[in-house]
């Protein structure tokens, strides 16, 4: 294992609302090595984005607050880093891309200006130099005529082009970690592939670590080597893409994989949706959070939360089925 660039240990994030404490992230633990790309997958509302924004410390407080755990980035605990220091890390050491490129750019500011403000701040370059760098970045992310495009406004760009601009902004200061929060969700399918391809290319060129957040399992394999499956604020299964996709050990992962449409599906193979809703994080269930929806739920699952268990080197699962005494159930992977 390479030296870990980012280590998240038992992170807990809650939102304190009128109704009570919503435990959005409930003890998440994972690590990412330098140059590694990891996917964080799960349904909407499972805590993926909250985890990502917490690493960047972008969660609005109030109502959100880190209630426990640590976020070690290059040895520094970001959970306890003061805002003034965080400003020097954001955009500089860690870059971030968001889901909707149509709303993530300031509509009244030129692309060039939005690119240069980070560069000027973090690298202390004068405006002219920063603008040269901005043009370079636009060229790097594959925007034609970058020297002309820097003077334009976001509304003059297409969705895919805007997401390229977002990537350029995120990577402008050569961060060590790039967090991509559903970067392709709002884009057309053909554009999605281009954006993932671009990220892959840039990762190989710059050795940047990537956390790719998505609910689209299709884009994972193209970019990432490892997958973290998140459910109800916890990582329920993690491992290499191959392990998790081909030999899922958690019923949730299994259901998630069965819910993905495939072009090469054998006849009569049906898409299966996951019945029910994710649990209410105002009062999470006392046992396994997936138990109410799990077709293999056992009595113990309702009683006691499962612990992480290593089923193979680097393949961790949070499920009572992996307990030696549990009945054997067949969870077939995809492909």
């Amino acid at each position: 294992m390479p030296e870990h660039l980012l280590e998240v240990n038992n992170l807990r994030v809650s939102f304190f609302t009128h109704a009570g404490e919503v435990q959005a992230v409930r003890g998440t633990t994972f690590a990412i090595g330098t140059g590694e790309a990891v996917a964080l997958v799960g349904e909407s509302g499972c805590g993926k984005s909250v985890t990502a924004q917490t690493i960047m410390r972008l969660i609005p407080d109030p109502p959100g607050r880190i209630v426990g755990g640590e976020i070690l980035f290059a040895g520094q605990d970001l959970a306890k880093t003061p805002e003034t220091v965080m400003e020097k890390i954001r955009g500089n050491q860690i870059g971030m891309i968001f889901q909707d490129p149509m709303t993530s750019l300031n509509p009244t500011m030129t692309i060039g200006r939005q690119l240069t403000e980070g560069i000027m701040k973090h690298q202390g370059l004068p405006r002219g130099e920063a603008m040269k760098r901005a043009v370079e970045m636009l060229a790097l992310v594959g925007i034609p005529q970058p020297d002309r495009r820097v003077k334009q406004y976001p509304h003059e760009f297409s969705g895919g082009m805007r997401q390229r601009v977002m990537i350029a902004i995120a990577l402008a200061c050569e961060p060590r970690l790039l967090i991509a929060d559903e970067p392709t969700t709002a884009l057309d399918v053909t554009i999605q592939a281009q954006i993932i391809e671009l990220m892959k290319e840039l990762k190989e060129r710059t050795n940047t670590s990537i956390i790719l957040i998505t609910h689209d399992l299709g884009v994972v394999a193209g970019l990432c080597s490892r997958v973290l499956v998140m459910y109800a604020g916890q990582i329920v299964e993690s491992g290499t893409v191959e392990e998790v996709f081909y030999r899922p050990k958690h019923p949730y992962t299994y259901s998630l994989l069965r819910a993905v449409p495939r072009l090469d599906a054998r006849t009569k193979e049906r898409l299966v949706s996951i019945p029910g809703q994710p649990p209410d994080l105002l009062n999470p269930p006392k046992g396994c959070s997936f138990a109410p929806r799990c077709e293999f739920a056992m009595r113990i699952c309702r009683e006691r939360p499962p612990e992480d268990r290593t089923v193979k080197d680097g393949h961790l699962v949070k499920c009572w089925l992996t307990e030696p005494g549990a009945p054997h159930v067949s969870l077939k992977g995809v492909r």
Partner: protein
Amino acid sequence: MARFFARRFGTMLLALLFISTFTFFGMKVIPGGPFDSEKQLPPAIQKNIEEKYGLNDPLFKQYTDYLSGVVKGDLGPSFKYPNRTVNDIIKESFPVSAALGGVSILLAVAVGLTLGVLAALKQNQWQDYLAVIIATLGFSVPSFVLAALLQYVFAYKLGWVLPAMWGTWQQAILPSISLAALPTATITRLMRSNMLEVLQEDYIRTARAKGLKNRVIIYRHAIRNALMPVVTYLGPMVASIFTGSFVVESIFAIPGLGRYFVNSVFNRDYTLIMGLTIFYSIFLMTMNLLVDLSYAVIDPRVKITGKKE
């Protein structure tokens, strides 16, 4: 751009034609109106009006003569003031109103923007409550009530200023506060809600993800975007301030256009009412056009075309 101008000018001209026609025939139907030659008037004025409008001409000719006067910028003689034309009165009193209005606009914009931004940044703290209270009061207390109260407290009770005079800058304080109250309240409310909305926008999160300081994010990203809808209010604001000056100028005895207008209504100085209405219309429509143009300059998304939204 050209189409936009053509359309706007066309609408302006039609609106002017409409208001001119409306005033002309409106005044015509009034018994004892300016065009009623049986009405007893001082001979000098009678002569002026007869000369100007050719009261013995057929009605249609009187109307076209009147319109061509408007087009040439000649609004005719006053009905009550011998030997003064409406143009003379405008020339003399408009600068006063413009100065007062200008100060009020600056005051409203400066105070309103500051309060609105402050309220949004300190949401649900005392600064916010203060701004909301000021905005609500400004919204609810009519300008003439505010003007009278200010006059009562600061002129009669405290004796800090003369109740009614015009000339020194101190004399402009109370009237401009009275005039600025309503627009200040409107701008505060607009700015507060716009800021709250903008601060939730994704691009603000992007700016934070770049590591920009909060202060920079607010000045560079949030305020500019929150300002856009306020610009569209500037047109109605100018109208509100200038029509508001009708009563405020009367209360403080300021020799501006507003007071002339009120006096003309009070004295039934019909030609002056007509002239000033047309002048106000032209002035305010021009201001509206300028505001729309400036909006297009500020917001890169707005492309000026002849098309409707």
